[in-house]
């Protein structure tokens, strides 16, 4: 019986191909991790170990880099990723209220995933779109000038 979050053979093959391409290029670990996360969505222990073996690096070193950078996740994500900008401009314009409401309405904690796996909610660093503050990004769609009401309304559109 395979574990719940096991990667598919196809994903593993893709990850192996990435590792093979960059093995031997100095400093390529972060690039490899970024590409592997695009493939797998997150880093289950088996993937960290596989990358370490492939790159000929200690697992501790790979894990150290994964846990250092906020882009990399050790937890699986929901079907839709909500990224709420918590930069200064968004904060001044009321993003805290937006976050609070989204958390309550969809039963998801900041940094976590809701029980149904529908949304992951992640407060993120300034997205540099301060002209649109407060900003919420759902998957790849950027929504500017959101209010607690409009944010919930927008999210209802993602199943």
């Amino acid at each position, binding site marked *: 019986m395979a574990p719940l979050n096991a990667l598919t053979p196809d994903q593993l093959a893709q990850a192996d191909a990435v590792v093979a391409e960059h093995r031997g290029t100095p400093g390529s670990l972060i690039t490899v991790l970024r590409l592997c996360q695009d493939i797998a969505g997150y880093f289950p222990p088996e993937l960290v170990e596989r990358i370490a073996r492939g790159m000929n690096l200690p697992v501790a070193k790979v894990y*150290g880099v994964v846990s250092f950078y*906020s882009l990399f996740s050790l937890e699986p994500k929901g079907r839709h990723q909500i990224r709420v900008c918590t930069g200064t401009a968004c904060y001044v314009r009321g993003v805290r209220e937006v976050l609070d409401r989204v958390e*309550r309405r969809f039963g998801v904690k900041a940094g976590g995933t809701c029980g149904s796996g529908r949304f992951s909610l992640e407060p993120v660093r300034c997205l540099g*779109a301060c002209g649109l503050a407060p900003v919420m990004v759902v998957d790849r769609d*950027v929504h*500017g000038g959101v209010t607690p009401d409009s944010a919930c309304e927008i999210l209802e559109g993602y199943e």
Partner: protein
Amino acid sequence: MSARLDRAALTAMRDFERAALETFAPRVFCCSGTGCHATGSIPLIEALRQEAARQGGAVQVIETGCNGFCALGPVVIMQPGGVLYCKVRAQDAADVIASAGGRPVERLLYRDPDGNAVAGMDSIPFFALQRPWILRNKGRIDPENIGHAVAHEAYQGLAKALFDMTPERVVEEVRASGLRGRGGAGFPTGLKWKFAAASPGDVKYVLCNADEGDPGAFMDRSILESDPHAVLEGMLIAAVAIGSRHGYIYCRSEYPLAIHRLTVAIGQARELGLLGENILGSDFSFDLEIYQGAGAFVCGEETALMRSIEGRRGMPVPRPPFPAQQGLWGKPTVLNNVETFAGIGAIIRLGAACHAGVGTEGSTGTKVFALSGDVNNIGLVEVDMGTPLSVLVNDIGGGVPGKRKCKAVQLGGPSGGSIPAHLLDTPVDYEAITKAGAIMGSGGVIVMNDRTCMVDMARFFMDFIQDESCGKCTPCREGTRRQLEILTRICEGKGEPGDLRALEDLAAVITDASLCGLGQTASNPILSALRHFRGEFEAHIAEKRCPAKRCVALLKFEVDEERCRKCGLCFKACPAGAVEWAKKKTARIDREKCVQCLACYTACPFDCIE
């Protein structure tokens, strides 16, 4: 046009492209920066192109980088004439195209605060008071078309540096211009290059710091999105000056459009022989690649950034040795910020005097600022060094929206501080801003209105800093966390008399005992808030009162009956059904149902929620 250029061919290309741009009239420039993308410029450009074709094909539609006037996007500029349209929708495309060379579309024009339509870009204070130098090409070239950049003199500075100047002369020119690093610290660029040039070694690196992490700063993103070749040219000239063959641009992965445009620009430059072997037919070779960051604020620090490129945890290391002696992979390295590099080409092409003659004595040239927060004209602006902050906020920015007042302006991100409204005549100059209790920083300017609680803002920044502290130095790792705890307690009404003293003591230790700039400046948001707004901290601690009425735990959630105008806006805003109200009746909040979300407070125009 895949032939590799030499200097004469570059000049011929410039003249040809310029003539083509000038003769092909009329043209519609549509902003395609990240801000305008979010407000719908992608379908708009598609619609404009279709309409242009449908109406005979005489009008050329050009997709540009960030125009700077983000608050009113998508923005369209008509040439010739310089008419500016705001908030243009795809359904406006037919009218926009039809108006080319004729009468402007009245309904799409910018409205001044009195409601009058203003057609010309130059008549709008937002644009008229700026001096575009770094941003000279914003909104008027297609960033994915190298021909447009070349038409506007791109790579002419490189040609001059390669064929008319010695490397020493290039360094001297940059020194004479007085240019100081635009990333925040303001170190003289020419001096940095001189050190790296003097370091022995065959292998040297040129790095561009595009890890723009300060919240509220988007200057570098906009420059990369609107004029990537200016940055490449600056890096090439640095490489000529110090004798480097390889470079990296370290860019945040949060900036996908900037990365895309850089990738396109690098590809086009390679094709024309502006990157790679024997550039412009000379014996100089240089190539560069983009390195994507993975989300760590500390990687904006130069030694941490280099560790990150080496594929390691981005933790700073002690200096000396400075990167100019031992940087990336232990080799001499020059690292400058995007905005710094973007200004180099013009300094070399036009001479140091054109830069040194602008601004103040210690701070020459112009500075790009990202204006945001509680201000009407949010966007990207560029002014002479020495311009008073009030011009930035009130004249260019159009002041604070609604009937609120400006309380303070935050500069320099989490390493900076807040300058209170009564000091807004402070000029933007490295020294003057430091004297007022903030730092120039990379250029984020966040305007805060009188509903902003300065204790809460200090808490916000400490939350950021303690999370982004890399953990290497104990004072920074532990100290910032303790500061956050104290500030959180104060905001929750649990402040104690000794708290302010404790904050200041911690600040002194963290500043003195941290290795890198992040730790050394980590306490600035607290110290500047205490310096200018100490009374607010004391009100929180002694009276358990938040004067700005922002800290939820200190609010009573009661309606001030005397001030209530019975308008019912709070009733409509409340998502929990906790506000009781009927026409001509004073509103009342049911504390049992209230979830303290502040919706009523935000909606009330009369400040009567206590």
